[in-house]
């Protein structure tokens, strides 16, 4: 009587294929498995022997939702290996490109994947029947992010303009000024978005997370910084593997990450926000405090608010970059190939992503290691479900199942990334 199974064979509104299996016996959760059955694609293996110049484009194909995150992490790791730094306006253009991906990816999640859960719709298309203007607003905002990626990167999915050392072609000031007009309107929509999502009902579910993100001395982190945590870790990117490990578990085609000390940790918007609040733009900080948030946020359901704030921030930042933009003289800096190792970590919309490569004298890849955000969060997602389900066992099974799905979608899990997959099962015996 008191036992049940929560089972979702194919999780919806996540990127990739996965499922959930939760088993409850005598009012106690006895098993939680976030199953990732997205077929493995073996990127780290077939990257071996490829030219270092091909790596940003190849790794982009790990994920169609956040290709820029892969491209940026790859170029930074390769530049680290070759001992060069891309600075000035080229660095700013990379930041602008990343703003575009954050806006596009976060808006997709806020409006199309997550908001329907809060309002009780199967999808945003169902939601559009009752709230056409809201959904149109979301589509317009998403389009603004896509426009940035298109102007700077050439196209929205798998941009073609990024290379190790810089870009192939640089946008003119005029191209960017045309873009800026659209971004100003999008910033107003982002502000509306924050106010809209702040009014949702949030389950009372505050957790004591170990947050991990990049931190930079004067900016909200995108491409560079040190790896920091809420319990005082502060390390160089190249030390990542000294502190974090990946483990291969049977129910998942994605590797699970944890701290070497055995703790699970949290990467993504909540971590970034809580560890870097002071670096947000004045408008973003003011808006956050106005809607009653504090400088840290430990309720994963409120990640929809934090994503909306990060959209607002990314628009502010994009406009700042465009305003002070001066066309750089060269689209890319010169590179000299040498055998070495390089490390890169950047902040993908879903959280920190780490790349490490070893290349030979000809610039061919000898070794590659890629740790995407979803594999780092998998353990924490499972931990959330262990804590979330016991207080809600009186709910009808379909409602409880939906709430568990929502708890997973809090992380905007990208399963394609994690295998370089998600499916839900609740077993009440």
């Amino acid at each position, binding site marked *: 009587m008191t036992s049940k199974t929560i089972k979702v064979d*194919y999780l919806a509104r996540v990127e990739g294929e996965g499922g959930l299996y939760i088993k409850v016996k005598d009012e106690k959760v006895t098993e939680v498995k976030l199953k990732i059955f997205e*077929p493995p694609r073996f990127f780290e293996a077939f990257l071996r022997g*490829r*030219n270092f110049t*091909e790596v940003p484009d190849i790794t982009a194909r790990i994920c169609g939702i956040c290709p820029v995150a892969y491209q940026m992490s790859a170029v930074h790791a390769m530049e680290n290996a070759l001992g060069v730094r891309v600075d000035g306006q080229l660095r700013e253009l990379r930041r602008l490109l990343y703003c575009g991906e954050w806006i596009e990816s976060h808006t997709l999640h806020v409006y199309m994947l997550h908001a329907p859960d809060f309002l009780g719709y199967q*999808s945003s298309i169902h939601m559009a029947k009752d709230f056409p203007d809201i959904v149109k607003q979301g589509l*317009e905002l998403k389009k603004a992010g896509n426009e940035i990626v298109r102007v700077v990167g050439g196209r929205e*999915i*798998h941009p073609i303009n990024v290379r190790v050392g810089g870009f192939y072609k640089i946008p003119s000031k005029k191209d960017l000024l045309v873009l800026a007009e659209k971004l100003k309107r999008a910033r107003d929509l982002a502000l509306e978005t924050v106010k809209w999502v702040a009014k949702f009902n949030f389950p009372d579910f505050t957790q004591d997370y170990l947050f991990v993100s990049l931190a930079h001395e004067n900016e909200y982190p995108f491409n560079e910084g040190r790896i920091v945590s809420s319990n005082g870790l502060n390390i160089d990117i190249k030390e990542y593997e000294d502190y974090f490990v990946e483990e291969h578990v049977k129910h998942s085609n994605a590797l699970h990450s944890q701290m070497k000390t055995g703790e699970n940790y949290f990467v993504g918007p909540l971590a970034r926000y809580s560890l870097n609040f002071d670096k947000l733009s004045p408008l973003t900080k003011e808006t956050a405090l106005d809607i009653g948030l504090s400088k840290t946020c430990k309720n994963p359901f409120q990640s929809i608010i934090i994503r909306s704030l990060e959209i607002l921030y990314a628009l502010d930042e994009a406009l700042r970059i465009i305003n002070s933009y001066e066309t750089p003289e060269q689209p890319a800096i010169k590179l000299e190939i040498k055998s070495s190792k390089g490390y890169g970590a950047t902040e993908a919309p879903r959280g920190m992503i780490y790349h490490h490569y070893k290349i030979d004298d000809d610039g061919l890849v000898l070794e590659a290691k890629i740790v995407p955000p979803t594999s780092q969060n998998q353990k924490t997602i499972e931990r959330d479900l262990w804590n979330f389900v016991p207080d809600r066992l009186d709910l009808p099974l379909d409602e409880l199942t939906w709430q568990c799905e929502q708890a997973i979608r809090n992380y905007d899990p990208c399963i394609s990334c994690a295998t370089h997959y998600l499916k839900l099962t609740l077993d009440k015996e």
Partner: protein
Amino acid sequence: MARKPKLAVWKFSSCDGCQLSLLDCEDELLALAGNIEIANFLEASREVIKGPYDLSLVEGSITTPHDLKRIQEVRKISKFLVTIGACATAGGIQALRNFQSVSDFISIVYATPEYISTLEQSTAISSHVKVDFELHGCPINKEQLVEVISAFLFHRKPNIPAHSVCMECKLAGNVCILVSNGVACLGPVTHAGCGALCPSYNRGCFGCYGAKENTNTSSLSNKLYQLGVKNQDIQKLFRSYNAYTPAFLKESKAHD
């Protein structure tokens, strides 16, 4: 009122980029949803309306024993089946495993190889079932996607040009980067669809739309060779996102 046609979107081994193209149709999405029933599209909706479906869009390649069975099911319940993207049409970047032993690959990525269930090869959908139309690209072009959906649902032939990127480049009025700058470019042998994007960004085409039909890859290779491109780099050019498309496969093997 007549019944709205039912659309389903299926995912196999892929990056989700091609199906995301549908959600990226910000201007057309709601109008499209008004004319068709989005009956099965897990990335966007929890609701799954049972088949049969009037049109199935298939993303991704076949790489597991389970998917081998699933694609047969999808074919049975679909009136028309259209593959979207290089993964579904040619096996995708993950078909690079086809050139090596997959067990070596598993042990490079996973500590416990016995947990992984996978096939030796990553193969195109057409290797397993009848495909009614193939849309090229890694990723596909979203305008072409909208065109294909409307064409199939309203029973006309899709208007998708089958010439080369090289032709698109000339139509765009670009100066040829291969001839003028000596940049290695697969434009002459690559299927049109992107609007000659890379050459417009001063970059050689790397063939992400796959091979155009009846193409002469060896004469392009000779030209690249004369430009000083190394044999192994020519091989890599043909061996990427569409490595298992027959014309590119043959050409890359010629450089072994």
